[in-house]
């Protein structure tokens, strides 16, 4: 049983090694700088620049976090500090349910509801009022499939993860601190803002980091709504092409073009390394917090 446990831990090393071996041909023939910062993606001509895909992933993920983090923080504080226990008992299973919905169903919802909403209402409105700012222009892509749609879907998808970790962190703050603050006559929210959030800050950040890395690696839902054009987006309405979508979209044809499969595996390796670093960071912070409590 011990060996099995150690084996599970070594699985991570095995995944890394396998991807590295499969990506090796391209890592050897192309300098890392050209791969990561190159802007042209022409597998047939041997040009494998990941830059548009990396930027695409970052745009979608950053937008998702910008939407999700304030909402999640509010929701977690509500559930941990304010909600009556009946509300807690009713809400938590529903949030768990949100976590269990398959990603293609999120994607389908994006195609059916979010994309048309952006195309018909959000896009035109933004373009009328803020269109002169490139960041909000729909000129290049009025279809609705783009960074904003991906960001909204991802924000809903990471919501349950961030909320459940954050709520647990907030609950782990000792009651003594709460009572001491309330005894000084401040309102509950002031106590939350000045005592609770300060004490729980590392854990709150860890929860956000976990959500970020989940969003970073999400594939199917994003792939279905983000437009998949290999370019560096300039506006939140532009189409993007995240790394995960690159891998998923091209698995069929990758065997016929030389180095193509190595390039896709290299993309997987980039994904793995980023997620690994973020996850280890978040988990170590959370463990520290647990020990302190």
């Amino acid at each position, binding site marked *: 049983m011990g060996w099995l*446990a150690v084996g*599970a831990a070594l699985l991570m090393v095995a995944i890394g090694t396998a991807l590295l071996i499969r990506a090796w041909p391209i890592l050897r023939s192309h300098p890392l700088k050209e791969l990561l910062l190159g802007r042209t993606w022409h597998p047939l001509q041997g040009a494998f620049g990941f830059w548009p895909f990396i930027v695409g992933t970052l745009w979608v993920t950053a937008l998702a976090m910008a939407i999700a983090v304030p909402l999640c923080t509010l929701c977690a504080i509500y559930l941990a500090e304010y909600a009556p226990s009946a509300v807690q008992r009713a*809400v938590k299973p529903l949030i768990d349910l949100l976590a*269990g919905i398959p990603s293609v169903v999120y994607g389908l919802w994006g195609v059916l509801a979010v994309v048309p909403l952006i195309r018909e209402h959000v896009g035109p409105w933004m373009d009328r009022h803020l269109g002169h700012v490139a960041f909000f222009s729909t000129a290049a892509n009025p279809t609705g499939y783009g960074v904003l749609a991906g960001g909204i879907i991802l924000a809903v998808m990471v919501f349950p993860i961030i909320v459940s970790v954050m709520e647990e962190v907030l609950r782990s703050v000792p009651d003594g601190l709460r009572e001491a603050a309330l005894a000084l006559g401040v309102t509950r929210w002031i106590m939350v803002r000045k005592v609770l959030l300060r004490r729980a800050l590392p854990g709150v950040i860890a929860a956000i980091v976990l959500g970020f890395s989940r969003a970073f690696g999400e594939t199917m839902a994003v792939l279905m709504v983000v437009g998949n054009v290999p370019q560096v987006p300039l506006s939140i309405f532009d189409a993007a092409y995240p790394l995960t979508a690159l891998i998923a979209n091209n698995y069929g044809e990758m065997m016929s073009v030389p180095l193509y499969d190595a390039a896709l595996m290299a993309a997987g390796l980039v994904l793995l390394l980023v997620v690994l670093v973020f996850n280890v960071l978040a988990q170590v912070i959370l463990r520290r917090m647990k020990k302190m409590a």
Partner: protein
Amino acid sequence: MMKRNTLWRLEETVMKVLMSGATALALGCLLLILGAVVWKGLPAMNLDMVTQPPQGGYYTGAGGGILNAILGSLCLALGATVVALVLGVPIALYLQIYAGRSRLVELVRLALDVLWGIPSIVYGAFGFSLMLLMGLRASLLGGIIALSLVELPIMCRAIEEVLKMVPFELTESAYALGTTRWEVAWKVMVRQALPGLTSAILLAFGRGIGDAASVLFTAGYTDHLPTSLLRPVASLPLAVFFQLATPFPAVQERAYASALVLTAIVLLISVLSRLASNRLSRYVVK
């Protein structure tokens, strides 16, 4: 001049509204998603969808259904859950009973938590490289391998949480009767943890059946019903994905119906898991 007290009150009220608003928004999204799936899926639903495999010309609008994907998904998720369970129970028991509080155990726990966060497309790519190594083509077996890797960390951590809840006094009294750790593990802890174990299994199964990115490379897709471990197999998430990607509205409607089937299965499992943990907890020493 406004008193500080009044300001605080105001802030309190505003934040309360914002907080309940954020929570309501999340629940609203859940409702909207389920509503959209039911509203779009139900009209496209019929008996053929769940009892027939696709017939010739299905992807341009001819007759048939998605029985291939339903059975395929059940096979994939069932296989992966069995593998993850067989590997996961010993790992969780080891972490909880045998190892005490050593550095190694902490490291394995950390590794499992991190594995939980690894995107399923990476598991798919890893499974695909494993299959190349073993000379395996896209098949049910390949899909089960990749999917069981996705499920393993979920299963291990969920089971361990369950084992943690077993009262300390219970295991201590078992030890006092002269039992071995092996007996305590399998006869006391596993039995005591049965309700939670059932929910852990259902949780992993539910996660497995909805996962698309890991089976995309490894299980492939086919119009035939699953017959062999070494043949490609269809799955519900990919059925939704592929049908939605066709240009024919009639086929896209089938994607909605497929999504309805998938969502219904996932919801059913989630309800079952709650029921199971309530029902089975009758047999537990409190």
